[in-house]
């Protein structure tokens, strides 16, 4: 085989690309057979095969007959979902939760990082950080358990307010609860990346600014903001890209029968329709719809940023 390959490449007058690759692969077979194989297998089996499974969205899926044996119904699941009165509500619930979540949740860690940067003693700063990061390690279930306890009619919040609202049953309170608890849990942790970027801000630059008599606002404008601007931009793009993938786990754990009007989002609906009701085809269609919107958002966001950022995308 080697001889055959060599003669082909000799005829062509220069070593062929295929030949070089094969030689490389034989020399470095371990890179493929040991290093890459597990990851490639897992990706193909658990990521790509389910992608083929989205065909289920176009069938009246019957688990016994399989995808090809099931009745083909074209886009009827999609039209059924898009024309149902619930569609707009679930879509809006999902969008509102993530857009408002982004509006409130995105600036919070940046603000925290700027505030932390004002703490002069590094010992105190570390202790504060230890507290701020802590909620990140609480599980979604425990977080929602705490939220339910604090917000119960006899819980701490009502105790402080002197009222006895049952917040968990109020649809109008759901988004606030979801977003505020998200900030409570995540803002401290998310601030690490900005804190690190801030501490990379040139020390000399800052000292020079102070010597020139710059006040704190001027220091922030001239030294600190430029130091974290790129990080902020990258984080923003990534957050926007995730707008349709609102976490299932937390929304589901904060749902009660009475707040569904605001708390039913696409991912919880997909779960209920698919795994609880067994309506596989319909559920897959709704999930696919969600994924497609997400991809469109991501691609357009990246295009916008490329324009803004002199052709540099992410």
């Amino acid at each position, binding site marked *: 085989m080697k001889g055959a390959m060599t003669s082909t490449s000799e005829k062509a007058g220069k070593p062929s690309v295929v030949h070089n690759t094969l030689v490389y*692969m034989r020399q*470095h077979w*371990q*890179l*493929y057979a*040991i*290093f890459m194989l*597990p*990851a*490639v297998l*897992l*990706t193909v*089996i*658990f990521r790509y*095969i*389910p992608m*083929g*499974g*989205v065909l289920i969205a176009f069938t009246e899926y019957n*688990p016994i007959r399989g995808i090809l044996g099931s009745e083909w119904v074209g886009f009827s699941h999609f039209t059924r979902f898009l024309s149902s009165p619930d569609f707009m509500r679930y879509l809006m619930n999902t969008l509102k939760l993530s857009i408002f979540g982004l509006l409130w949740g995105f600036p919070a860690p940046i603000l*925290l990082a*700027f505030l*932390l940067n*004002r703490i*002069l003693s590094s010992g105190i700063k570390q202790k*504060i950080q230890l*507290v*701020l*990061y802590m*909620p990140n*390690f609480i*599980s*979604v*279930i425990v977080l929602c*358990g705490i939220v339910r*306890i*604090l917000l119960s009619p*006899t819980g*701490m919040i009502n*105790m402080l307010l002197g009222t006895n609202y049952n917040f968990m049953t109020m649809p109008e309170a759901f988004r606030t609860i979801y977003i505020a608890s998200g900030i*409570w849990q995540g803002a*401290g942790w998310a601030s690490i*990346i900005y804190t*690190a970027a801030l501490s990379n801000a040139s020390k000399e630059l800052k000292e020079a600014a*102070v010597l020139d008599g710059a*006040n*704190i*606002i001027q220091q922030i404008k001239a030294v600190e903001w430029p130091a974290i601007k790129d990080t902020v931009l*990258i*984080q923003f793009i990534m957050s926007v890209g995730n707008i349709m993938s609102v976490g299932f*786990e937390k929304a589901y*754990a904060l749902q009660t029968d009475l707040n569904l009007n605001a708390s039913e989002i696409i991912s919880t609906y*997909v779960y209920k329709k698919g*795994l609880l009701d067994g309506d*596989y085809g319909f559920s*897959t269609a709704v*999930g*696919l719809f*969600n994924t497609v919107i997400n991809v469109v958002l*991501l691609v357009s966001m990246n295009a916008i940023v490329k324009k803004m950022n002199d052709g540099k995308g992410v």
Partner: protein
Amino acid sequence: MNTKFSRLSGADKAIMVFAHTVLGLFMAAIILPVIYIILASFIDPVTLQNSGLTFDFSKWTLTAYERVMSNSQIWIGFKNAMIYSVLFTIISVTVTLLAAYPMSRPDFKGKGFFNVMFVITMFFGGGLIPTYLLISNLGMLDTIWAILIPGAFSVWNMIIARTYYMGIPHDMQEAAEIDGASEMVYFFKILLPLCMPIIATIAMWQFVGMWNSYFDAMIYLNDAAKQPLQLVLRAILIQSQPEPGMVSDMQSTAARAQLAELLKYATIIISSVPLMILYPFFQKYFDSGIMAGAVKG
């Protein structure tokens, strides 16, 4: 850069006061609920329901802790969560670190192809039902493998590890190759020992992530004996359905409901203790890990 507070101008002083106040409030918002739950967990259920927190110590009791700790389901949950988290961390970190190595080599042929193949999965997937049916068809339902295997390879962590490898001077590898070291020897003997900070960081993420998640266990595991801690917690905290044995000796429905409520407080404390004890030890890996992730956003 330690400017003395007294030397600051009036406006700057105001900003400093503002910064300290806001941070103080944020910390209070984190700490107060924790203290509230710790205190409430010791209070007699009827009193807690009727009059809330009290410092009348005759109303304090260890009932909730006794009941939660004497319930076997919690301990089964702890044991399962520990098994799943440890095994998942080992499998996931191994697969991820291995794949990151060829992807970090400039000469690796096929890198572009593999890169596209992996990155697509970050944005596009089959979704819930196709994945569920695949797991079901593979006979993995209600087995530990459904929890450990499908999510074991993390593209994101692979990118982070790859970025870290690329920061190791390239002459290391050339020197090793000249000395006749094979790829395996170079990887295990030279490269990995230099990458301990990032390995520890990724391992911590995977461990905490598995320990805290419930979705996969909820959809793939039915058997109560296989449930991880978070599912047990979900029954108590979210569904308000503690194990019947925890409350069944109470006479009235109302008393059972009150007790079920109190059990939540103790459950939160007991389930959070292990991670809270380990947590300060993680701290030194926080910054290195986050920065590694930031390099290639």
